[in-house]
């Protein structure tokens, strides 16, 4: 344990969806299950997210309206926090003064802290149109700004707003952006992706964490929501199909006997990582997939490192030179591998 993992804190009023977001993103709970499987969170819940070696962090889900931050040691060494609010629960004024209070406390400890505001639950009857969502965001942004003016020295605080719902991709895309800010080598990865996209005439490339479907980086072409969603859905397809036909225990019964000796870790934490590995055993160094669409676009996925996937959107013409595409991806893969080795053991 050389340097401690960066932390991401989840704050917000009761029932705004903090635990739901955590469960949906990192424990594969399906969104509708949050309706009846989640109880109010009594104490802060810690979760280590370290499935891949490029983006690792500790996620802490706080009880709603948590107010023991007053003596704020929790903000020490903290680079960001996420504030989740319920867009369907108007009026917002109380919630937003809770938010500005938190911001003011946090900035006293770390003036450069990043604040991410998730305007959550923008789904259902109230938010059928995009316009309704944008209106909601505009209202909230101006209320927060008004509120912040009553404090001193909050002019330069970095606050970003996201419209999210656990029922669609928005929560994945938004959380990706939170996590990207914590990746130390983000710029390098981005330039590697730029080179790859340019050499192969690709439309777009993403580097994904396969377990959470968060993307760690992308090339500097603009992200088009629809393309991103397809790449993200593709990961589900690849994992699900591989889980059915490419599970190790299926084809090699000897292995099961080997695995029978896994009595080592009775301890809670180790147990977890063992099952995690078993679960993901079917995503391996030869994992690879191509999906062809009727508009001449191919989605191409390749394993890069344990639990990392490169997913690119490319035209059928460019994909025709598959040897070249694979070669260039190989180069990219090597570069990422080196980066991880330099960073040292996890």
């Amino acid at each position: 344990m050389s340097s401690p993992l960066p932390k991401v804190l989840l704050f917000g009023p009761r029932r705004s969806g903090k635990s739901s977001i955590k469960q949906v993103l990192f424990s594969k709970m399906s969104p509708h299950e949050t309706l009846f499987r989640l109880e109010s969170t009594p104490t802060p819940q810690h979760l280590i997210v370290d499935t891949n070696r490029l983006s690792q962090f500790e996620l802490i889900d706080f009880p709603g309206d948590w107010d023991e931050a007053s003596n704020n040691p929790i903000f020490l060494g903290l680079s960001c926090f996420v504030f989740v609010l319920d867009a369907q629960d108007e009026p917002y004024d109380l919630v937003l003064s809770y938010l500005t209070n938190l911001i003011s406390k946090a900035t006293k400890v770390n003036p450069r802290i990043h604040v991410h505001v998730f305007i959550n639950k923008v789904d259902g009857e109230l938010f059928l149109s995009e316009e309704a969502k944008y209106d909601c965001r505009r209202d909230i942004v101006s209320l927060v700004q008004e509120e912040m003016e009553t404090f001193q020295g909050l002019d330069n605080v970095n606050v970003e707003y996201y419209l999210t719902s656990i029922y669609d991709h928005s929560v994945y895309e938004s959380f990706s952006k939170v996590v990207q800010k914590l990746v130390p080598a983000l710029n390098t990865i981005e330039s590697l992706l730029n080179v790859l996209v340019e050499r192969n005439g690709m439309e777009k490339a993403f580097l994904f964490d396969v377990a959470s479907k968060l993307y760690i980086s992308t090339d500097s072409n603009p992200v088009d929501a629809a393309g991103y969603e397809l790449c993200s859905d593709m990961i589900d397809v690849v994992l699900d199909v591989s889980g059915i036909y490419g599970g190790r225990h299926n084809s090699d019964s000897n292995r099961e006997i080997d695995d029978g000796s896994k009595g080592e870790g009775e301890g809670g934490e180790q147990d977890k990582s063992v099952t995690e590995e078993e679960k993901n055993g079917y995503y391996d160094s030869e994992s690879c997939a191509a999906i062809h669409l009727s508009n001449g676009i191919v989605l191409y996925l390749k394993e890069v490192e344990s639990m990392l996937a490169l997913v690119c959107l490319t035209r059928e013409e460019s994909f025709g030179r598959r040897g070249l595409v694979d070669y260039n991806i190989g180069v990219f893969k090597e570069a990422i591998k080196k980066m991880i080795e330099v960073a040292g053991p996890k």
Partner: protein
Amino acid sequence: MKKKVLLMGKAHSGKTSMRSIIFANYLARDTMRLSPTLDVEHHHVRFLGNLVLNLWDCGGQDAFYESYFERDRETIFRSVELLIYVFDIESDNPEKDFDHFSGVLEAIEENSPDARIFVLVHKMDLVHEDERDVIFEDRQRIIQAHSRGLSLQCFATSIWDETLYKAWSEIVTNLIPNIQLLKTHLDDFCRISDADEVVLFERATFLVIAHTSQNAAQHNFDAHRFEKISNIVKQFKLSCGKTQAGFQGMEVKNSLFSAFIDAFTENTYIMVIVSDPQIETAATLINIKNAREHFEKNFARS
């Protein structure tokens, strides 16, 4: 070829939801916005090209039942090919559900004695996973006890997982005339191409219509894999729809297997699973292409 299918069961049991997901490309969560069905809604859905299912989605409120049983008895229950009866696992009045059920069976027996009967015990996602089998067995026993000696088949279903596809695949394949011949040809194709498994899906619904395996026992595959694949691919097709691009085909592999899912004949998709590393991708693709021509010729307008 038209086939009349009756969809019955108590109000709010999930009939319209299932129909909309299977035949009208709804996502499961879209069904939360459905409003109650009034009287009978008629829908014609095309399956495998020229099989037309004439779906009668019968609103389930008590008042409607009165007219189903009295005034409209013949209209409703005459020349029925399939009856699909839906029970809500969380029903607040199971007694009454069974009264209706018995009434429906009686009317069917009288008007369409040859109809095939399927009973869906629905919304099973609301039951804890560990208890699903036991509760389903129990329900099935009660249903059988009310069956008036008619033969019927029960399924546990939920719109939130692949069980929906399992049930509807089994139900619908009952209506395909030359299914046995289709299966024989699929067996041949599987053997010739050295595949572990070949599965045929209906194009629009992605329901499984036939499958064949070699050495499946040796692989110990998940028993629910076909309906899982239906569910997975259908979801992805719907995501593609949002971008105005159609789904054409895919190839997924890891160190132990390759899966090819591709548009096949005019009305089907095919999936071929290969685990033998000696078999080149190109060879499999050529085999699929040849089989496509063969199937188009033999099953074009059946």
